Each structure stands twice: as structure tokens, then as C-alpha cells.
């Protein structure tokens, strides 16, 4: 449904998006992750036809976003980051206006507006002026706008930004409900949200794609799980046993008197818990804790963004020394 190929966007000397490429298949809910300034909004604006790309190509449902811009825009429901809506209009008037602008036939307009208001749950503020509703409702009015022409693709740019936890939960729930009928590209820099809602994530940093895949698999493959062990024995004996089984560097962890504790980062797919349990049992050591801890998406995110920043800083520093 969405295809981006070698997309580059420059603003003067600033390179906002650098040869970005990804695809989103029909029915997917894809989280578009990245720190502030990573290029998420720029990419989204190119997809929605607001900005032209400097080079590269993007298509939406088979339509080129530049050469067939109207057809591409017809297929997208877009929720911008800061929902800019007309304060002088009532919610229902705003949605009727947007439905007309998006080409919903006059006879179907009332039903389309009703359906969008129901899906976004804004019925209770339908008669209120848009300028008078709370930020949470404003965001949902923006979502209703994105839905009003029932487009096959929804592009939501930081839909929960600036909302309180209850409002965030409500928006996430709405997005989950919409996933059954729409292909969704959902941008955020809040990792838990993306993990909650998305079936796949794209991580963008400094305008380039750093990762693409199912969150759990990406996290497990990139960072590796951690083995945590605590047993009634000395720290050194436990460390030796873990090193034998896990074949990797184990590090001691703080433990109460009389107990040993350590942890080790495992290779992707490695699971030494069974073997280690048997060894401990054979040695007559009472086990207090033996578990695998999966890293969080947050750790993964830090790993690929801060890690790359550090590598680039080091490279720059090295280059400076050589120079």
C-alpha cells in the first residue's frame, strides 16, 4: 500500500531524509519510530503530498505521490502532529466541510460524518465549536477528519503527543479498532505506544532507516536476552558455572549475604536455562532465581540510536585526531 524508494529530502543544506526505503503492506499497522528530528514528519509530509521529495520515489496504493498527487491524497487519511482545525466551526460542521473537500458525495456526507464521529468517539462534542474542545477531543476530531472519507490508508503523525495518560489510552484503543479496516502508519517517539499498537516497526534516525521488523524479534536479535541467576553458593562458583554453560562473559550482581548472583547477555536464540539448572542441581546448589529477561524496546531504541550516535562521534573524533 505504501512504497518508499530511496527517498531523500533536503531543506537547503540540511539533509532531513537520506535515501529512505520501506514498504507497508495492506492491513499492516506499522509504527514509525524515531527520536525528535529524525525525519518522521518530513517523510510523512512527502507521503501526504505536502512536501515534494528532493529525489527518490514514494507511492501510495500504486499512485505516485508527486505525479498522481490527487489520487494518492484521495487514498490517505492524515492526522498531522498538531491538529490544526478551524476554531470558528462546530465539530460536525468541520467534519462536513472536510468530507466535502475530500469528495464524499453530498448524499453520503451525513452518514460518513456520523460514522467517523462514532469511530473516533467524538459524538458528545459534535455541536461544540472546535476551538472550545479539549486537546484530547481535538486530537480525536483530527482522527475523525482522517477517517471521514473512509480512506484505505491512515497516516497518523504522533497522534498522542501532548495528551494525558487516559487520553493516550483512548487514542491507542481507537487505533487498534481501526487496524481491522485500514492500513496504518503510526509515527511516535513514545516506544511503549508503538509496541502496543503496531505489528511492525520502522526505526528512523538522522533521516535513515535503522531497523525494520516485528518489535519482539528486532529487540531479541539486536540486543540479546539476559540470563539472571541467583543461587545459594559463592559468587565465584556461580560465575564459573554460568561461564561454562552460557559461554559468555557473566557479570556479578549484588546479592544478599550467603547468596551468589550474576547475569550474562546471551547470543540471539541462545537458551542455557535448562543446562544451567541441571548443573546447579547436580552440584547440590539451591536455586533462588533462574530466568531469561528480554530487553525492552526502549533499550533496543537506545542501542540503535545512541549507539550509532556514539560510533559517529568516535569516528569524528578519530578523524579529527588523524587530521
Amino acid at each position, binding site marked *: 500500500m505504501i512504497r518508499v524508494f530511496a527517498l531523500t529530502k533536503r531543506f537547503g543544506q540540511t539533509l532531513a531524509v537520506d535515501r529512505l526505503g520501506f514498504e507497508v503492506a495492506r492491513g499492516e499497522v506499522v509504527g514509525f519510530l524515531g527520536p525528535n528530528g529524525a525525519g518522521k514528519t518530513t517523510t510523512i509530509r512527502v507521503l501526504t503530498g505536502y512536501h515534494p521529495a528532493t529525489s527518490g520515489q514514494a507511492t501510495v496504493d500504486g499512485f505516485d505521490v508527486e505525479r498522481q498527487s490527487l489520487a494518492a491524497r484521495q487514498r490517505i487519511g492524515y492526522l*498531522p502532529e498538531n491538529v490544526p482545525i478551524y476554531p470558528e466551526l462546530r465539530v460536525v460542521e468541520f467534519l462536513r466541510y472536510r468530507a466535502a*473537500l475530500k469528495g464524499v458525495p453530498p448524499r453520503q456526507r451525513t452518514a460518513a460524518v456520523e460514522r467517523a464521529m462514532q469511530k473516533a468517539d467524538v459524538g458528545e462534542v459534535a455541536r461544540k465549536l472546535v476551538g472550545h474542545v479539549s486537546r484530547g477531543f481535538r486530537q480525536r476530531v483530527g482522527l475523525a477528519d482522517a477517517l471521514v472519507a473512509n480512506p484505505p490508508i491512515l497516516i497518523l503523525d504522533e497522534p498522542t503527543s501532548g495528551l494525558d495518560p487516559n487520553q493516550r489510552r483512548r487514542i491507542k484503543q481507537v487505533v487498534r479498532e481501526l487496524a481491522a479496516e485500514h492500513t496504518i502508519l503510526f509515527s511516535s517517539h513514545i516506544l511503549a505506544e508503538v509496541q502496543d499498537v503496531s505489528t511492525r516497526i520502522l526505526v528512523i534516525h538522522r533521516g535513515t532507516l535503522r531497523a525494520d521488523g516485528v518489535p519482539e524479534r528486532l529487540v531479541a536479535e539486536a540486543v540479546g536476552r539476559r540470563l539472571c541467576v541467583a543461587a545459594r553458593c559463592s559468587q565465584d562458583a556461580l560465575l564459573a558455572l554460568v561461564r561454562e554453560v552460557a559461554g559468555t562473559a557473566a557479570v556479578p550482581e549484588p546479592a544478599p549475604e550467603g547468596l551468589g548472583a550474576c547475569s550474562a547477555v546471551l547470543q540471539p536464540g541462545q537458551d542455557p536455562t535448562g543446562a544451567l539448572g541441571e548443573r546447579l542441581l547436580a552440584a547440590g546448589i539451591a536455586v533462588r532465581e533462574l530466568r531469561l529477561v528480554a530487553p525492552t524496546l526502549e533499550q533496543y531504541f537506545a542501542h540503535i540510536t545512541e549507539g550509532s550516535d556514539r560510533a559517529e562521534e568516535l569516528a569524528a573524533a578519530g578523524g579529527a585526531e588523524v587530521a
Partner: protein
Amino acid sequence: MRGACTVFQKELLSYFVSPVSWIVAVVFYLWRGYELSSMAHYAMLVRADPDLFASATYTLPSTTAMVLLVPALLTMRCFAEERRTGSIELLATAPVRDGEVVLGKWAAATVFYALLWLPSCLLLHVLEYGPFLATDLSFGPVFAAYLGMFLLSAMLLAFGCFASSLTDNVLLAAMLAFLFDFGLVSLPAQVRANLGELAQHYYVRELLDKLDVGRNFDDWFARGLIDTSQVAFYAGGVLFFLFLCTASVASRRVA
């Protein structure tokens, strides 16, 4: 044209709910009414020729303000406000052409301007009754003059839309439009006076004559004459500025 009609309806509604529009309307009609009644009393006092009364109203300050200032005030928000609030992003990402958006906004401003301005000719009709002039006025020249002023204003409204598309500062857009409006009315005569010999050159003279909207108004519309070349000039001006405005709005889509 669907997009233009939709934008037109929404913009027209926005004018009707905007306090600026109502303030302009109230101030203009109070001012206009006061000026006309004072002028009628004076005309009765000096026993002026009633046929000259209608054409004398075109020189009133309220007419100048309505033609030069109000188009700038009505169009200042057209695009500048959309850019300031970010709602231009909603318009630009909707499946509607930039030209349709521009046309819809200009048409709404022009219709609202017509609704604001044209009823003022009814004030002249009121003056035909007893307490004022108590005589029939010739409305042919009045309609021609109103048409001339309306055409000029339609062109200035098109320029106002263009000025508004250049900035996200509403006041700057209004000032730019007002400077242009004022310049268009006053500069050709000034330039002609300062050019000396060059002003007599055929092409220069023709150009300055065409651009001198004040003199053209006095020569044609104010005398009750509707000249098709004048109508074409204003219609061409409207199209030219709407084209510039569309190009300005669409420039965002140029890599």
C-alpha cells in the same frame, strides 16, 4: 470545481462569523450614512444640481476606504492565517487542487465584499425621499460606477489573496495589500508627472493610461459608461493575481 465550491462555502461562512467583518460593516455604514446625510443637507442648502449628487459620492472618504482598505482587510487572513495556524497542511493534503482553493477563497471574499458594499447604493435611494433631497436621482450612472468600483475591488481582492499567500503574518499581508491598492490608484499619475518626455512615448503612455485606474474610472464608469476594454482589464487583473497566488501556494510543492 467541487473543491472551489466547498472552500467558497466554508470561507463565506467564516466571513459571516468573523467579528472583523461585522466591525467593518458597522463602521462603514455609520460613516457612509453620516457622510451622505451631511452631503444631502449641504446640497439642499446650496441648491446643487441633483444629477451631480450621485457622482459626487464617489469622492467621499468612505468610498476610498471601501475600495482601497477593505479588500486588504478581508483577504489578509486568507492564507496567512492558514499558514500561521498550520491548517494549510490540512488543505494541502486534501485531494483538491491549489487553484481551486485559491479560487474558492477569492470568490468568497468577493461575494462577501459585494454583500457589504453593494447595498450602500440603497442609501442613495433613501436620500430621494422628503427629509433629504426630495427629488429623483439618476441611477444609471450609479450602477455603472458601482460596477466599476466592484471590478476594481475584485482585482484588489485577488491581489490581497496573493499578498496573504506570501507570509504567515496577517498584518504584514494587510499592509502589503494596502500599499499595492494605494500605489495602483496614485502611482500612475505620479509617474506620468515625473517622467517628462518619456511619458509621451506611445507604449509608455498607453501603459500608464491602462494602469491609471482612478482616471479611467472618472472617464468611464463615473459617467455611466461601461467600456469592455476596462472590464477586460479588471478581469485580466483578477486572473493574473489569482494565477500568482496559485503559483505562490503551489511553490511549497516544488522541490
